């Protein structure tokens, strides 16, 4: 049997932090979610940014929106064929609001070279902590960004307040990139006020550690791009990177993977005992583990009808979201 646990940072680690129960039924037992919450938006943006940069460098012009749409359809036609079209519209809307390329996006592609970079890394772990497995294959996708002549300036900055605990917060503090800087970018289909920004920052630090293994160097910084943020000044967030921080991020990520395995073990003993709701809030009452952002996922979740956290959060089984006799909602 396989000695490797394949762990996707977004599809497993972050999904498990949102709701271990939904993650376990989907990933461990194979239940087909009947209303897919599409996690493809970030992937589409990665591809779009690389393509926009390449086209800009080749032709010196910003491509028209219909050209990008054709490119996305070309590359992601399987999604299109399966009727998943809303993600295309949303991405187009983010990048070309009102039919014009977004200012931040334009500055990003004019000033830097973006290339899509799939990260795959293997980490050895103790089998006793990981259900008898000794290796984790960690997968993720980032943009590798090389700053060029018109380098970007970031107005917002994630400051680490504790390197060992990997805690931090957003400060309005200017950071200027210089030509030659290598950055790791990731795109999030949320607003900048998301409560998950800390998770995302730790995710990028982990990617930076894996990038260091491959290249021998750390990136100058990491950058989060909140593509669903209407206020252009809040879209980009620069994140400090140091050796100490990325080492701590690897430790943090391994701990998350161990939590994931622990949830899997609980699920194997009794699926019903696996607790739903935000994993970091597991010390709270079930109903208090549903945050506003998680609620957007819960409202379409096929497991919500007997979920003690969500049922409690909406005030009981008579709420239309969890009323199993309500035919006016799917």
């Amino acid at each position, binding site marked *: 049997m396989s000695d490797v646990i394949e762990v996707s940072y977004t599809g497993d680690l972050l999904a498990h932090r949102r709701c271990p129960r939904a993650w376990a039924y989907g990933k461990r037992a194979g239940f087909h979610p009947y209303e897919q919450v599409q996690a493809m938006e970030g992937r589409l943006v990665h591809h779009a940014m690389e393509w926009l940069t390449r086209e800009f460098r080749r032709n010196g012009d910003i491509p028209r929106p219909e050209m990008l749409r054709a490119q996305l359809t070309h590359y992601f036609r399987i999604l299109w*064929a399966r009727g998943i079209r809303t993600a295309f519209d949303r991405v187009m809307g983010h990048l070309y609001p009102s039919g014009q390329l977004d200012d931040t996006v334009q500055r990003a592609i004019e000033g830097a070279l973006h290339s899509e970079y799939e990260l795959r890394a293997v980490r050895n772990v103790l089998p006793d902590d990981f259900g008898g497995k000794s290796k984790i294959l960690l997968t993720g996708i980032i943009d590798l960004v090389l700053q060029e002549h018109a380098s970007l300036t970031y107005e917002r900055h994630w400051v680490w307040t504790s390197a060992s605990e990997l805690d931090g917060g957003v400060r309005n503090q200017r950071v200027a990139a210089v030509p030659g800087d290598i950055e790791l970018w990731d795109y999030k289909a949320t607003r900048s006020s998301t409560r998950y920004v800390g998770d995302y920052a730790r995710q990028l630090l982990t990617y930076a550690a894996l990038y260091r293994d491959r290249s021998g160097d750390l990136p100058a910084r990491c950058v989060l791009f909140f593509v669903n943020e209407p206020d252009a000044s809040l879209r980009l967030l620069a994140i400090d990177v140091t050796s100490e921080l990325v080492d701590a991020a690897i430790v943090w990520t391994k701990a998350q993977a161990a939590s994931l395995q622990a949830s899997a073990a609980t699920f194997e003993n009794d*699926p019903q005992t696996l607790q739903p709701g935000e994993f970091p809030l597991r010390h709270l009452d079930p109903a208090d583990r549903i945050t506003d952002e998680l609620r957007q996922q819960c409202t379409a979740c096929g497991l919500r009808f007997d979920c003690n956290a969500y049922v409690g959060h909406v005030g009981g089984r008579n709420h239309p979201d969890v009323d199993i006799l309500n*035919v006016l909602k799917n």
Partner: protein
Amino acid sequence: VEPSAFFELVDEVLVEAGRSPLHPGSPQRKIVEVLPDDRVLQIVAGPGSGKTEMLVWRVLFALVVARVPSHRIVVTTFTRKAATELTARVVERSDALIAAGRRRAIPITDPRVQDLRIGTIHGLCDALLAEFDDEYIAAGTQLIDDIEVRVRIARGRRRLFGQPPPPPLLERVLGREAFVALFRPPWVQGDRWPSSVMDTADWLLGVLGQHMETWVPRCGATTAPNGVELVHPTPGLTADLVEMQRLWEGALDHRSLLDFATLQQRFIERQGSIRPHIDHVFVDEFQDTNPAQYLLHTGWLAREATRLTVVGDDDQALYRFRGSDIACFQGLAADCASRGVAYRQEVLDINYRGTPEITGFAQAFRRTTALARVSMDKRLRPPPDASSGRPVRLLRGAWQQLACCIADEVRDLGPRQGSGSRSDAPTVAILLFSTSEKGASPALSLRQEIEARGVRVHNPRNKVAGRAGSPVHDLLALLSYLMDPVTSVPLQAGGRPVEVHATHRSLDRVSLAVSAPPATVRVSPKHAAIQKRFVKRHGRVGFPGPVSAPLLQYVDDIRGRLLTANDERRTPRLTLAGFVARLLSFSFFRDVGYTIDLFREALFTALLEANIAPTRMSPASLDAPLGPTRRPDGKIEWPDEFWTLLSFLGMLVADVDLDDPEVEAFAEDAVAMLTFHQAKGLEFDHVYVGMTGREANPHTVLRTKLFSGEAVPYSVEQGTVRTGDPDVLELAAADRDREIYVAMTRARSSLTFIDAPGHGHPLMRLDDGTARLFGEASATRVSAYPTVTCAVADKAQPL
């Protein structure tokens, strides 16, 4: 990086990983090095010989020393799981190599292993066509899997293949008994086959696959007739098969779809435009290549600069029944010679997996069975420094006691059973030719014995996932009850109540049903039979018992609310899948724990999705909300597309032996009960091998030869094919012996054969090849089970 420096780093990494370094001049080192004049390298790799490790290092040599860009390398694996394992190994070794290089001040540029094209042949064909072939993209072609192909053929077979002149094409081909019998599974009883819609769909799938993957690449260019037409009076058969293929491809094109066989063919047609983008192609498990795939893999060689590395073991070729032909693997050297392409062969024949006893037994089996006459030249050996282990055993006896004895042993081995297990708990596998649990099968009784001792067993090919009482069955029953509830009413006033529903064969019963019959489609009543079985297991029609009453009441309420919403012109948003999600929240389903029932619930959601998905491109989407309406006469009307779905799901659950899903999360923490075919590529600490006594059936070998245009005489007796052709018989015997060889070479620490000669099942007696190797070995009685004896293969014998 120079080759010498590369090999220094490789040795350092291998030693770090607890492996031996590569000795200069060893076959391993010759395999890793990509020589300047290499065009085709064929690696013949026995079981446990470390072929994956060598494949990984050859890929890294190509990247780091030969400087081939990673996106110009293709690595084809047999399964997606194998692709993941290979990816993990490449990443791990690449990172270790870079780190070793840094330590020795040998800078290695990031080889971007993440850009290697690693995947199954179908996944890679799809991805490469998508990237390099504009026409493919323009067609918006979507790849569909075997389940969806089966659905489409079952639903559309009459329309697709009902072409004039009479008799229609489908009937014409089905009427040729000598042809049809070639595809009949040997275990099917009774005269008539195919007898159901799903049998016919499976037969059509087999025919189309063999035609497209064997006849087209081997005879298509010359239009040589199918061999069946040469040996039996079946004029026009080849033309009919060509027409069938044309119609099927046309139907797929019309919907912008591709199945696996058509995808391969499309790829071969367009390979010329992709060839310039690829420099080195690696193919794992090459022994299971079919003629179309062989054409595809060797098609890369049309470009002078492209190299081909293939890995496999002719002794482990198992997939002739799916169209693969071992002649592809064995004939590669001669083919290269005839094309003038440089060819090199390396052999890996040291088995690092098993003990010397297991390896010796396997080698003796090769030498004394049909494999000796048809295999390529090699000798399976243990490593020189291997420590001796337990002898290979044979447990023989009356089945009931034998099963108890095995179950006791398995329990005492302390196999891995979930997260609470020790990390060094051993893996145990029971490998049987057939793991069907239908009826009083050996697999079922053995599973029950093992589970009675508190040990979990996973059998993904049990053929009973949809049987009565399974969640698959019950969820469909409730779906059927929603659309077409069976009620009990008298046909006439004062008469005896009878069961009525809208899809009953009797029209007077249809007229009394709650739902109106489907308007334009023909619906099989099998869904209603499933519904009735569910209702009657928990009560009676109209009088549900306490277990089923809440569920049936809920479905009644939902039906009522859907109708009311429509009456009130409010649009319901509930879909079929949403309805099933609600049903699953009932304790009847949710309280199953972490058992196979949980995975069967998941299986039903997957089956529903598989049947909804084909309609997504059509105007009548089954993702649409449920929309029943009430007619003026009070009857409930459902859109025809929902009837079609219900009809098909009914036939699927009633007529197809559904298997449990192969869920890794469950399977890894249970004793594996697997067929020989499923065990391929896996390894276990302790292995029991049983049901080895099958006859050598010539039908699959005949199919290969006949579809290759060869005129091999054969006859059909009571639906079964017979031949006296010595070549066919020998190949058929070798096919059977390979299965047993693969099973025995999965073992690491202990290997035990099972022989139950008194059992009624013909496969339960030990095969002749294995029996010969135990010969006269003295057997001792197993104390707790008086009818069971244990014989030990003697190492001193010339095994």
